């Protein structure tokens, strides 16, 4: 096949792949805008992507059935804290591993890497006992604190910092800056891509957190969005239109965050040499 014939084919396959990935979101969006009765009926054919009988009833229904704003604010607060404090803690840790000389550094870094392979599900029960003993159940703190220090984030920061020219820090040292000032005035401003990618990756993973909040919270006052969507399954009648409307509103913040930072995100992924 000639090269010129290959290019349109290549783009066509990319287009099809893109459509495949976006189709669930299209399904959800269309479903959220049509009467509940039609959602499942039309699920088998092309009309699934067509919002016939356009209405916002499902959205109004969501607000009537749960305190959506409360859940949204909880989610935003919890994720904001995890991302914000996490960036500070993990970047400092990554820097210490990458650049500072101290006893036990290699051993501790090895442990941090090892922690990456342990899923939350494996430690959820002992962790639950710990936070119960501390009396933290049903608080914001219990949903934030365990997720601030993150081995994968530390690793991303580490790989980025280790690749930065050492002379920058040496110049700063000779100019009279201590380690913390060097970090905040020289390193951080030159590491925006890795900060952006860690922020987005953390936000994406934590936004959908379900198991842990379900275990440690019981009151609506502190629960995040994913738990609210579950109430639609547990409380009859099961209305798919409402669930889709909820889903659209829950996905929207992620899309906004991603679109805002996507330039940095792509650069960060390239710079840290990882896949998102």
């Amino acid at each position, binding site marked *: 096949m000639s090269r010129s014939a290959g290019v349109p084919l290549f783009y066509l396959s990319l287009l099809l792949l893109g459509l495949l990935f976006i189709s669930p979101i299209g399904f959800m969006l269309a479903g959220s805008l049509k009467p509940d009765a039609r959602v499942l009926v039309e699920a088998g054919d092309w009309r699934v992507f067509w919002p016939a009988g356009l209405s916002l009833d499902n959205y109004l229904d969501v607000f009537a059935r749960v305190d959506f704003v409360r859940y949204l604010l909880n989610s935003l607060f919890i994720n904001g804290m995890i991302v914000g404090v996490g960036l500070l803690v993990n970047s400092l840790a990554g820097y210490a591993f990458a650049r500072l000389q101290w006893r036990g550094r290699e051993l501790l870094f090895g442990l941090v890497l090892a922690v990456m392979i342990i899923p939350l599900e494996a430690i959820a029960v002992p962790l639950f006992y710990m936070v119960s003993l501390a009396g933290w159940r049903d608080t914001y703190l219990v949903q934030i604190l365990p997720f601030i220090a993150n081995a994968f984030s530390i690793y991303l920061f580490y790989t980025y910092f280790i690749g930065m020219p050492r*002379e*920058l820090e040496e*110049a700063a*040292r*000779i*100019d009279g800056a201590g380690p913390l000032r060097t970090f905040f005035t*020289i390193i951080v401003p*030159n590491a925006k891509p890795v900060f952006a990618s860690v922020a987005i990756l953390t936000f994406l993973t934590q936004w959908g957190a379900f198991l842990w909040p379900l275990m440690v919270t019981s009151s609506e006052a502190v629960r995040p969005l994913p738990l609210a969507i579950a109430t639609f399954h547990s409380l009859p009648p099961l209305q798919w239109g409402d669930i889709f409307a909820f889903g659209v509103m829950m996905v929207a913040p992620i899309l906004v965050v991603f679109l805002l930072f996507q330039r940095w995100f792509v650069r960060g992924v390239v710079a840290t040499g990882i896949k998102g």
Partner: protein
Amino acid sequence: MATVEFLHIHKSYPDGTRALNDLNLKVAEGEMMVLVGPSGCGKSTSLRLLAGLEPVSGGELLIDGECVNERPPQHRDIAMVFQNYALYPHMTVRRNLAFPLQMLKMTKAEIAKRVEETAQLLGLAELLERRPRQLSGGQRQRVAMGRAMVRQPQVFLMDEPLSNLDAKLRTQIRAEIADLQKRLRITTIYVTHDQVEAMTLGDRIAVLNAGRLQQVGPPQELYEQPANAFVAAFLGNPGMNIFAARLSRNSGMLQLESDGWRIPIEQLLASKPGLEEYLEHPILVGLRPEAFSPEVTPAYPAIVVSIESLGHERLLYFRPAATTPSTAQKTLVARLSCTQAEAVGQNIRLGFKPEQLYFFTGEGEVIA
């Protein structure tokens, strides 16, 4: 201005590498000292030790007579220009220059004044609002110099500051650095692997090899009176030809035998009585490329191996033509004018004055 002294400085790394071995070197006030040597000789390490970027393993570092071994870099009153400049990429030239002054907690007015002065001195006034990536290589180099100068430190350290520039710019900035240093008279230690830079810039040159100081002195002295074969071969472009030879007597007259050449040197005995001791011993002999000439007699047979034309002169690579050709023969180089045209493979005759010969022991130490 200050003096700098390396006293019995040792540096070894945890993996056992010895970077510096008993370095003793004193740099006078206002002097431009160039540390030169091949890569891995310990010259950059010396600079990093003095800057406080790495701890010494033994010995004392003195700045103005005070031991600074334990002092952090910012309290040594030194400034450093890095090979890759290490300008802060996110700051404008103005902020790059101001940063060291901010660390000294100077007032805003003072900082502005110093930055302006330095920018004027280095011709950076027009570039103050640009960022490093918007500057050319030469401009970046100048900003790096400016950031070092703005603090008015006691000692300047420069780690191969010209190696990232193209040849033409290098010559230009080299002259600028020499001029600045003469005007400011700040004690400067300049590290380079380029012996031309060393010869042109240094008040004195310190030649290092394998972590040891080989010789220190004014450029011309090192060129004319090298302490050993390493210094002789390292300085000069191309460096001195060094080849193995043997001293013998022929009808009572002292002569040098090498690759079929028999060079009468009886007349040298008066100035180099030490030669007598090495009779019938293998020694090393040195000859600068410019010592050769087709016009001088006695001339010796040679075979042209290759020719490099430099426009105003030629570098002629040749092998001494022995009666029995051997593959072990060493290629020598002669710097000749462009008046004659030899061809590769041609048999020629080249002469030199015996006084231009240098003699070294088999270990490379000079024979007096």
